[in-house]
């Protein structure tokens, strides 16, 4: 149909299409409208045919579907080989991957196979021009992400290769409303792989339902490195329980082993948009801020009066959280 489409790699786990893939279809739709081109989706797996309509509802025009029993579960080599072949055959101008664990395994392998540029964990994608040595590349993908510890924001381009490739975390791009009547053309592609293309043997897969639902929660109480002791972490948890909130945290808190990875919020964790975000002992590094900046209300509690977050929150309290949180709890408890 259109050789210069915006292609999205669709991740599926246990026959369910990942949310991040739907978010990226919506984002691809926005980019494709600007570029006056189509949105295509690449789906690899087994027994997924009935699940493909949703991709059309969110904005796909074409769906490339590669069905093979051996592709039921993700492994690096065959997935990368097929995606690279699809890209070579259909020549999209942009390829987007969800920056999930498997997406971050797959995308760099595809980029090396095609010698194409790839930017990880973009927080914003735009279409724009790039001027270099007197030449102008028009309407290329601007891949925007924080870098170097979050003190700068870099705009990356891949001007001389096609496609431009980028990965984006779940929750960063907003979903648009689905159109149940929208249809896409399903193009079944053959899987021409031999046994040697499947070096990895999957012996066991254990996946539990998510125990933390940060994306869907209305209130989040989050801990930063100011929550240094078990006692203060317990206090943060107590506040979350009292408010019916989920617990989130910054990356150093995960690195220190205080809370599990699924609680991490920020550029390399979840992006959240709750009604209320209470940041406890969080300094407000850009990498964290990009994950919370669209919260409706933010309360920041920090004992350091110079913490950047105190200048950007809606409500700022300078004080030790061990002293502030009990005052909040007392008020909340008085309602009951």
């Amino acid at each position: 149909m259109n050789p210069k489409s915006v292609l999205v790699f669709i991740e599926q786990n246990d026959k369910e299409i990942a949310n991040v893939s739907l978010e990226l279809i919506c984002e691809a739709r926005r980019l494709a409208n600007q570029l006056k081109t189509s949105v295509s989706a690449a789906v690899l797996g087994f027994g997924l045919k009935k699940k493909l309509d949703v991709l059309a509802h969110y904005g796909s025009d074409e769906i490339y579907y590669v069905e093979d029993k051996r592709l039921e579960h993700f492994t690096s080599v065959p997935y990368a080989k097929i995606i690279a072949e699809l890209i070579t055959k259909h020549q999209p101008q942009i390829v987007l991957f969800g920056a999930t664990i498997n997406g971050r395994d797959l995308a760099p392998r595809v980029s090396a196979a095609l010698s194409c540029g790839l930017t990880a964990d973009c927080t914003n994608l735009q279409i724009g021009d790039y001027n270099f040595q007197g030449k102008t590349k028009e309407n290329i993908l601007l891949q925007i992400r924080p870098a170097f510890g979050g003190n700068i924001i870099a705009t990356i381009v891949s001007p001389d290769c096609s496609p431009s490739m980028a990965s984006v975390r779940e929750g960063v791009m907003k979903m648009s409303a689905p159109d149940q009547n929208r249809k896409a053309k399903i193009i079944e592609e053959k899987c021409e792989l031999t046994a040697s293309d499947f070096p990895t043997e999957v012996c066991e897969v254990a996946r539990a339902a998510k125990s933390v639902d940060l994306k869907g929660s209305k209130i989040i109480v989050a801990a930063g490195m100011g929550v240094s002791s078990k006692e203060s972490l317990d206090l943060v948890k107590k506040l979350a329980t009292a408010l019916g909130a989920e617990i989130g945290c910054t990356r150093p808190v995960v690195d220190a082993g205080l809370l599990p990875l699924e609680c991490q919020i920020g550029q390399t964790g979840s992006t959240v948009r709750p009604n209320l975000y209470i940041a406890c002992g969080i300094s407000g590094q850009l990498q964290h801020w990009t994950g919370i900046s669209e919260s409706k209300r933010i309360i920041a509690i920090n004992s350091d009066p110079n913490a950047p977050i105190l200048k950007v929150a809606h409500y700022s309290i300078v004080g030790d959280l061990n002293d502030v949180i009990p005052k909040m709890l007392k008020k909340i408890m008085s309602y009951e």
Partner: protein
Amino acid sequence: MVLRIITLVKQVPDTANIPDNAMKADGTVNRSALPAITNPEDLNALEEALKIKGLITAITLGPPSAIKVLKESLYRGADDAVLVTDAKFAASDTLATSYALTKAIEKIGKFDIILCGRQAIDGDTAQVGPQIAQKLGINQLTGVVEIISADKEHVKVKRIIDGGYEILKSPLPVLITVRGEANEPRGPSVKRAMLYKNITCKCNESYDEAYLHPEIGCSCENIKQWSAEDLKADLKMCGLSGSPTKVKNIENVVLAARNTRMIANTAEDIGALMQELTKEHIIG
């Protein structure tokens, strides 16, 4: 048979521990003032290599000062070390970096397992490992937290996936990237630190397998230093010209200040805020 293991290490600024004197007046970080360390997850990868008890060659790509991270690897138990350094490799993006390291691995020739950290703390891209695996045409296992077994033909690993884990088995050779949860890396051995404290680099030292025969009793005498020419690297694939991604622009970010309301740390003011948010149906 002894497994031949290559570990990839990167020297990075210690972004996790930013000293006060590294903060500039405008609130941004002066990167050159940060201490240079071995990327933390690369030490986890080295620890896995040491547990397998193969013969370990550590490779880094960086400026001459990156010799420091190779010494750190030797102190902890690596058997040999290679410094890939050349101004022609400067300004490499992940793809050009993976090209240079692939050329160095090809110069070494024989290997069974390549181990590296899942990602580096300065870029967090997690791209170089898989890109090398693709360029070498070998399998990859990323984000591994446990090497369950390794024999001369296969490895079996535990890999973290979204929402859980999986157990994977792969034939050798394979590239494995290791997560920080995998282990607690050992510190440097005093004896080895004494032995390698003053080790220097030797240019274009060819790779020999003498060290693979410890019964001969030879230890690593020099760190091998390889340039782009030594690697017979195609200069079009190196540095800036080998990097498809370009930085269009960089902005120092100053978070846009909001009309922030300061709430005093008193029971009255905090109570009033909670009440206000309740009335607005933000809470409750």
